[in-house]
Each structure stands twice: as structure tokens, then as C-alpha cells.
């Protein structure tokens, strides 16, 4: 049971380049999330998914896209990289029931992205 895995661990992009951050979970969780972490700012939610085929915007979705074709995978796409997207990106997952709200989120190790 690997939990939540993310690739790559670190990447340098040039302005205008594109890339996909990969995220996979093996816990059969229905919810998955993408966050970015900037120094002194806590975590900001980019996108989330409540199940395969269903995604929705979080607090800071501009410049990003996601898809969820399977329960396990939730890739994050950056189409035109900008310096403002320099950050550490975390993927997380949780199992949320209809009557819940207190479900624990499990995090991957993160991807450090530098846009120059």
C-alpha cells in the first residue's frame, strides 16, 4: 500500500512550457485534491474531484487543468507555465461519505516546481 504517490519530485520549467504533474492513490478513495503551498501562505486548493469523471475548481484554479478518468489517477496540467506558478504542489485523497465532513486527507510527498 503506497498511499498517494506523485511524480516528478522536482522540475524546472521555462516560461510558456507545459507539463503534467502525476498523482496516483491506491486506497480506493473517492475524493482527490490538488493544492499548492507557497511560503507563509498555507495550502491553497487548486482543483478537486469527488469521483471519476467529476472535477471542480478550488480557490486558485487559473492556469491549471485536471482530469479524473479513473479512481486512482488525478493529473494536474499546466499549459503555459508562468513564474507565479513556482510552488510546491501536493496531491491528496480522502474517502468521503454522504453524511461525512470530517474525513482525513492523505497527502503525497509533493512536487517542487520552479518556473524561470
Amino acid at each position, binding site marked *: 500500500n503506497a498511499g*498517494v504517490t506523485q511524480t516528478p519530485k522536482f522540475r524546472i520549467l521555462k516560461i510558456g512550457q507545459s507539463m503534467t504533474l502525476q498523482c496516483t492513490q491506491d486506497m480506493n478513495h473517492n*475524493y482527490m485534491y490538488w493544492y499548492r503551498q507557497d511560503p*507563509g*501562505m*498555507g*495550502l*491553497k*486548493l487548486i482543483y*478537486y474531484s*469527488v469521483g471519476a469523471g467529476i472535477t*471542480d475548481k*478550488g*480557490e486558485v484554479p487559473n492556469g491549471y487543468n485536471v482530469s479524473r478518468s479513473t479512481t486512482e489517477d488525478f493529473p494536474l496540467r499546466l499549459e503555459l507555465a508562468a513564474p507565479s506558478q513556482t510552488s510546491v504542489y*501536493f496531491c*491528496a485523497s*480522502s474517502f*468521503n461519505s454522504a453524511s*461525512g*465532513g*470530517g*474525513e*482525513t*486527507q*492523505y*497527502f*503525497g*510527498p*509533493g512536487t517542487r516546481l520552479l518556473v524561470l
Partner: protein
Amino acid sequence: AQSVAQPEDQVNVAEGNPLTVKCTYSVSGNPYLFWYVQYPNRGLQFLLKYITGDNLVKGSYGFEAEFNKSQTSFHLKKPSALVSDSALYFCAVRGGFMDSNYQLIWGAGTKLIIKP
């Protein structure tokens, strides 16, 4: 609007002394409250959560937190600090079912330094 405040950017404690990391929140309805810890270059790890019931919640690594509804606080505590407790601690909150959609609101984080 939902919000979380961690009023201290950094807390310094001598090893063996008790520690407190503060968190206050603002949500509508009954809150779901969480504490996570982040070690350097790692993802976030779940420590404990308050959903309902006893105001004193016990979690991993000897940590506990007390929910205080009148003061809208959820401070993290440990009776005797260890050097290995040095890390970045995040408080997070989710409001009642009318708020968001399982989206957590995160504090900015508090850096805990335990000195030998």
C-alpha cells in the same frame, strides 16, 4: 467566510517543556477541525481531528488538542516536547454542510522549534 488563523509564525520550546501551538477559526455551523504536521521536504501528515464529542482530542505522537467553542479555538498541545517534534504545523477547518464541499481552509502554518 470561513477562515483559520495561526497567530504565531514560530514557537520555540525547550526539550521536555510543554508546548502549545495556537489556532483560531471562523466558520458557520459546527466545525470540523484538523491538525497536520509537515517535516522538511515531506508531505503533510495527519495528527488529529475534532468532529464531535469530547472537547479534548488525542492524536499521534503524544499530541492532543482542545476544542473551545466559546473561544473558537483548537490549540495543539503536548505535555513534554521532543527535539523530533520540530516541524511545521498546520491547522485546518471545514464548516457545516452548507459550507464549501469538503474543502478545508488552511492556516498559514506555525514553525515549531524544540531546542535541546
